[in-house]
């Protein structure tokens, strides 16, 4: 093993780690705001990548129809809620977010599938579909149970994960897809040959993380989310709607998921079920951050990525074992290092 191999493995680990970092951040965000352990996070990765591949193959991705279906269900749920509370002034808002926007996304998708648009425009179309799925999913699956215990929410997550994986198989078939690189070519970095696409992955991830930082530190919406994360009841007392926070959080999670999916699709083949394992590695990273600390989670993600690339070199047969066993010492360390808090709201 010489220096060039070390550098290549480092580079590989950092590229993978950047994606895990994004997913870990999304998981931490969703957990702190809504107490949901969001297992289906990885499905947004698959949906993003494969919807883009479908659009590029001149097909309307099945996710567009799923979005429409979710919208209709969400609207019916909103409708019953409106009739129960007699607050009809809210109805037009639900109609826009549950019906008008999804229908618009479907129309755009149908048009884009045949328009032969540049790659970046297709990326925006996919974001328009998948990001909307986040809040609608929250409305349909989680909002009715928002006050339930984290365990119940976890079970809901497992159910949502299986439903989304099954639908993924239906929409995209069993075989995987790749998309063309955003940036072609290669460049020299510290004496090794690096594909520009991997650099793009790292830079884009870093930019997105930076944007999230600005969102949480500088904007009112971001501060509202942080407030909900710190103290749900307190946030409600100062008129921050927990439902609204939930929807916004899920939109962000879907955005991060779809974005990471489209980042990795040129580097690796994405399958209808590959999101789960990618998400799970993000989850290991999020656990390292104790599901609350963003910087620790990002650091953990880099650690997971590097561990993965080096163990695939030294002991490829045990790679998965090594990566997932990492969680045990981390949990031990965390359970000794942090005082036990009885969580009871």
């Amino acid at each position, binding site marked *: 093993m010489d220096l060039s191999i070390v550098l290549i*493995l480092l580079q590989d680990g950092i590229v993978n780690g950047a994606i895990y970092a994004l997913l870990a951040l999304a998981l931490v965000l969703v957990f702190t705001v809504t107490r949901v352990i969001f297992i289906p996070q990885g499905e947004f990765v698959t949906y993003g990548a494969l919807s883009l591949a479908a659009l590029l193959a001149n097909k309307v991705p099945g996710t567009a129809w799923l979005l429409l279906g979710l919208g209709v269900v969400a609207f019916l749920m909103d409708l019953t809620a409106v009739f129960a509370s007699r607050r009809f002034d809210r109805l037009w808002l639900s109609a826009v977010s549950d019906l008008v926007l999804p229908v618009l996304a479907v129309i755009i998708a149908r048009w884009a599938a045949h328009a032969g648009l540049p790659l970046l425009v297709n990326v925006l179309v996919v974001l328009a579909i998948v990001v909307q799925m986040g809040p609608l999913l929250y409305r349909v699956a989680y909002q009715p149970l928002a006050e339930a215990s984290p365990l119940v929410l976890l079970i809901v997550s497992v159910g949502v994960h299986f439903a989304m994986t099954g639908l993924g198989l239906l929409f995209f*078939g*069993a*075989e995987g897809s790749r998309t063309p690189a955003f940036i072609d070519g290669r460049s020299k970095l510290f004496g090794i040959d690096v594909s520009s696409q991997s650099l793009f992955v790292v830079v884009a991830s870093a930019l997105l993380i930076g944007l999230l930082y600005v969102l949480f530190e500088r904007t009112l919406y971001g501060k509202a989310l942080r407030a909900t994360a710190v103290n749900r009841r307190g946030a409600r007392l100062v008129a921050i709607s927990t439902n609204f926070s939930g929807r916004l959080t899920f939109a962000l999670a879907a955005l991060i998921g779809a974005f990471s999916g489209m980042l*990795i699709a040129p580097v690796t*083949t994405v399958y209808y079920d590959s999101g789960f394992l990618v998400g799970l590695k993000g989850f290991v990273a999020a656990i390292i951050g104790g599901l609350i600390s963003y910087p620790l989670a990002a650091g953990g993600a880099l650690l997971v990525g590097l561990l993965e*690339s080096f163990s695939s070199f030294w002991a*490829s047969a045990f790679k998965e074992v090594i990566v997932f066993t990492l969680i045990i010492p981390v949990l031990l360390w965390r359970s000794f290092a942090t005082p036990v808090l009885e969580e009871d709201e």
Partner: protein
Amino acid sequence: MSLTRLLFVLAAATALYASGATAQIKVGVDLSATGPAASLGIPQKNTVALLPKEIGGKSVEYIVLDDASDSTAAVKNMRKLITEDKVDVILGSSITPNSLAMVDVAAETETPMISMAASAKIVEPVDAKRMWVFKTPQNDSLMASAIANYMAGHGVKSVAIIGFSDAYGQGWRDEFGRAAQAKGLKIVASEEYSRSDTSVTGQVLKVMAASPDAVLVAGSGTPAALPEKELKERGYTGKIYQTHGVANNDFLRVCGKDCEGTLLPSGPLLVAAQLPDSNPTKGQGLAYTRAYEGAYGAGTVATFGGHLWDAGLLLQAAIPEALKTAQPGTPAFRRALRDAIENLHEVPISHGVVNMSKTDHSGLDSRARVMVTIHDGKWELVNN
């Protein structure tokens, strides 16, 4: 008027009675149409609709269940097919672990079973249990020796393997190891990856450090493209071999120009149109391709579906024999059907020519394999 109408209704009712509810021969099909093996199970499920609805003058009903690539579900499905639907024969499953689990049930209920999974362990050795079990795909050993022969004939001395970290990869590591030893090839590296991996950089670097003459990728379907693309990206210039597990058009779509020149062994079905007319498998290969693409569109045919078509061909050859001694729906018929399949001789199928015997329940020989290369994004027959 009313009389003709009555007659019409009666005639329609009789027709329904004869075709649907009381088909005379019942075939139970258990496939892995969802889960990790869905790329095998889906074309097989599509093929069931193309099988003949009548064999030997008896109507045939196919009852298809999905085992989700899970061996527990496969056994449950099989018991359901046998006890509730009272099927005469079972086709399935798509993958080795499921088929192995089903062997016991086949023996216990004395139901003949034809598997569409690759491992030789499903039918070898033919003992008291496996006497009820047959299979249509080529044994891995047949394919492994095809690669080893070809390598030895083309100046390859050292080989590295990158394979799935599951039963498929393990089977190939064993079989190819044996075949390579027989041909004096040296295996200089053996690395593993899993089908859902997003990166195989580490494994590829390790393989290249051993500088082999050729690399064998032991994976199936589109996941087998990942190591090959990585090898090309890292500048590997030797020959790359794949297994017959990649023989579908999705692999070509995903691997693109990086896979030009890849060599692999395959059933003759993959290149049926390019075979010489003297080849006995050409007729069935073209017939299946036409039937499948007629129903599902041009370029959709996959060799995996061919294994189910072949199981159907075995039934078409054996059922008329079995009908001579017993009636469907009875244990005697199941036994007669088993005997008839075991006695099949020189039956051309889309993947070869079958000669079953008391010791061989796969019955394929070297006519069941050809070497294929990828040229201009298409499969091309290699003439040795």
